[in-house]
């Protein structure tokens, strides 16, 4: 197992190198010039030349890429064009917010999606099945942007239960340790801040989790239905096992493989979906940051941010592959 993990981690290097080449080429093939966007309407040839020179944009492409790689070898992702800060520092400031949101959303979608899927499968063609699958269909099709605003109108404006946007109320103090606010509040035993942070994360996390919840629910349902028709389930029932034992021990374990794959992939979807959620809920995470960087052609942020997300994605995929073997010992990690 350890050898397998090490081998997979080694394969990560060429994969990520490939990511940098593709991102670099795509960036430079896309129209737009950071210097033009930096200076806007007031750009003069002279000012543009000076800015481009400073940013190294006057160099040939292969030289620019070479410089990027050389810095990367030293563990330096470079400096952002707009904010003049180390990309790594910016990543560290924003990723905790996104990961916190994505983890809560992932938890909601796993929990809700699997429960819905299991009940739907065990009560196939019941009213619950129809309603939950219709709900899942709606969940997949609902635009996040619209849903976020609807939630705000209902839960903040009309009912006044939840705060509208942001991560923490302005009158709540929290000593930041990890930048994961919920965790920081626990570590510092700051319960008012804990409550405030949890209250703030509910709406964006639920909004973000709608699509993954729906996908997980549908996937769990179909996988469970397949398994429930197998002979060994009949055997299990025949030997007098309780209904719950049959479902959770015999059926769910075997139905988990496609579900785990889906959940692993959903984490990537969550990071992508965070762009919209973060914009609506003024959540200071990486999604909005990357979106702005694309609009402003901040090459350094796009390269560094994408590389980081890609690395995260590869690691999650590795975790999923390892999980397969744990769930189903018939699958070998070899």
């Amino acid at each position, binding site marked *: 197992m350890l050898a397998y993990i090490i081998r997979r981690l080694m394969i990560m290097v060429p994969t990520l190198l490939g990511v940098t080449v593709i991102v670099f080429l795509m960036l430079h093939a896309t129209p737009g010039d950071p210097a033009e966007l930096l200076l806007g309407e007031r750009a003069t040839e002279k000012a543009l030349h000076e800015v481009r020179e400073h940013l190294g944009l006057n160099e040939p492409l292969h030289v620019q890429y070479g410089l990027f790689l050389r810095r990367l070898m030293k563990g330096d992702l470079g400096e952002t064009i707009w904010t003049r800060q180390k990309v790594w520092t910016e990543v560290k400031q924003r*990723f905790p917010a996104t990961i916190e949101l994505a983890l809560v959303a992932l938890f909601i979608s796993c929990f809700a999606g699997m429960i819905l899927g299991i009940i739907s499968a065990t009560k196939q063609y019941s009213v619950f099945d129809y309603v939950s699958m219709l709900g899942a269909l709606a969940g997949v099709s609902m635009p996040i942007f619209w849903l976020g605003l609807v939630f705000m109108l209902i839960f903040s404006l009309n009912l006044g239960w939840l705060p*509208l946007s*942001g991560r923490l109320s302005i009158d709540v103090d929290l000593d930041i340790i990890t930048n994961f606010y919920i965790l920081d509040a626990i570590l510092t035993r700051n319960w008012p801040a804990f409550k405030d942070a949890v209250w703030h994360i509910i709406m964006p996390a639920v909004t973000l989790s709608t699509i993954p919840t729906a996908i997980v629910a549908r996937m769990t349902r179909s996988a469970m239905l397949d398994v429930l028709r197998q002979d060994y389930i009949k055997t299990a029932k025949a030997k007098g096992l309780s209904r719950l034992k049959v479902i959770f021990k015999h059926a769910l374990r075997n139905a988990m493989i496609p579900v785990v794959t889906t959940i692993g992939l959903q984490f990537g979807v969550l990071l992508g979906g965070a762009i919209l959620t973060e914009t609506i809920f*003024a959540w200071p995470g990486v999604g909005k940051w990357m979106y702005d960087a694309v609009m402003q052609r901040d090459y350094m942020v796009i390269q560094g941010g994408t590389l980081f997300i890609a690395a995260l994605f590869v690691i999650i995929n590795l975790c999923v592959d390892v999980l397969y073997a744990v769930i189903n010992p018939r699958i070998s990690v070899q």
Partner: protein
Amino acid sequence: MKASKNLFRLSVTGLVLLLMIFLTTSCGQKEEEKAEAPAQPAVEKEEATQAAMEKILVFGRGGDSVGLDPAYETDGNSFMVCDNIFEALVFYADESTALEPGLAESWDISEDGKTYTFNLRKGVMFHDGTKLDANAVVFSLGRMMKERNVKFMGQGYEIPAQERPPEYWVSMEMDDIVGSIEAVDEHTVVFKLKKVNAPFLANLGMDFADIISPTAFLKNPKEFLRNPVGTGPFKFAQWVKDDRIVLEKNTDYWDTNAGPYLDKVIFRSIPENSVRFLELKTGNIHICQFPNPQDIALAKQDENLILPTQPGMNIGYLSFNHTKEPWKSNVDLRKAIRHAINREAIVDNLYQGMGQVARNPIPPTLWGYNKNVPMVEYDPAMAKDYLQKAGFPEGEGLGEITLWSMPVPRPYNPDGVKIGEAMAADLAQVGIKAKVVTFEWGTYLKRQREQPDDMDLFQLGWTGDNGDPDNFLAVLFDGKASTSIRTQWISDAYHDLMVRGRETIDQAARDAIYQEALQIFYDEAPAIAVAHSTVIWPAQKTVKNFKLHPTSSVRLKNVDLDL
């Protein structure tokens, strides 16, 4: 059962591992922040109990600041925070761009207009406790010069190399204007200019010319933009990226006549316009920048809100490709286009009432505005007559022309493509076929400057920097001055007026010069001034003395809150 326990254990381990990665990185970051930002205290516990008594104003805006070193910033979100931390030698008056004494309590201009002597205000302290003196002024402005022709008094400072070109200094061509900066004594600074330049004084009121604490800057030049130290009414306290910037009252502020009244100001980033407005409605923020036009109507009905309004110091215009025929020399054709476009309808429907049809290409709040120039009327019949005279009856022989329309909303133009479509429809009424063309914004700006053959008409605009007519009329339309000018219209008479305008110090004489230039603009129609947008930022009724400024700066010194 054992396997499911394993599965659970593995998932938990995975999560903990992930958390640990970020824990480590974030801890590192916290240490860095501590090292970088000594002036960034966590709000103390006792303060929290007093919070209810404090006057805290929350300003809701569309995005975060990029940086807080005024010399290197180019965006409004950075400048609005700088406006409250830093100050310049000269100030713009409330709601106008008339110049007032700032950190300089007076100044003298030599007879030849090339030497400016500023007498600094005494007893002004930077937030770090150091004194404002002539050396600080020489340092703050001298660091932007390409050739550091500066002279300090006494030991002075060593100015570090520039991190990057100071964009505003470069684009305002200050290196071509300023010859040297010299500290004559503790409170006197002399600027020697390379040539007479009347807008120079107004330039010194702009954000890029703010005075910074050299001591704070030299401590860590690379990090000054995240730890700004100035003389302004508020001092920098905390910055949570993409979330909030917190400023605290400067209790040692030099001007105690009015304000600062607020204990704290929080600039909150809320990117989505409608959400920002909802935050205002629920009372979570006090001022809402750039609401959606349709929310203005709702704000008007809300008795808890007020609507501070200011005619924007900007112009949205439509111009021609003057590097090619027929646009280059056919004045009648340009006039035909001018009369064919229904600007009133554009302002009513697309600016949604938040705009004003333009008479001149400079806003009416600026001196030099020519009221005697006739308002261009929407008159398709007259447009057809001009087309006939131009040699293109009913648009015949003109073929399909291109109308470049901006892909992004700008302060002077809410929706370039829709406005382009409306213009194309107007042109079709008089027989001119126009195709709306758009590109990604950076490409649009780049290609427009190249004046390519496939561009006939283009939309663009401008937000004024310093309230000087030169900053509109020369920068936008004097094609003879430079190939960088967006409208490459070559007019000797107009160019001469622009040169004279810059070289004349007397404002009354300059006023007459620009009025004459605007008459030429009307007669020659090198571009069509479409509209000036109006800025409306709704606020809570409890906010007192909040005034919008034509330069879009946000000055909160005099602002108070009813608790």
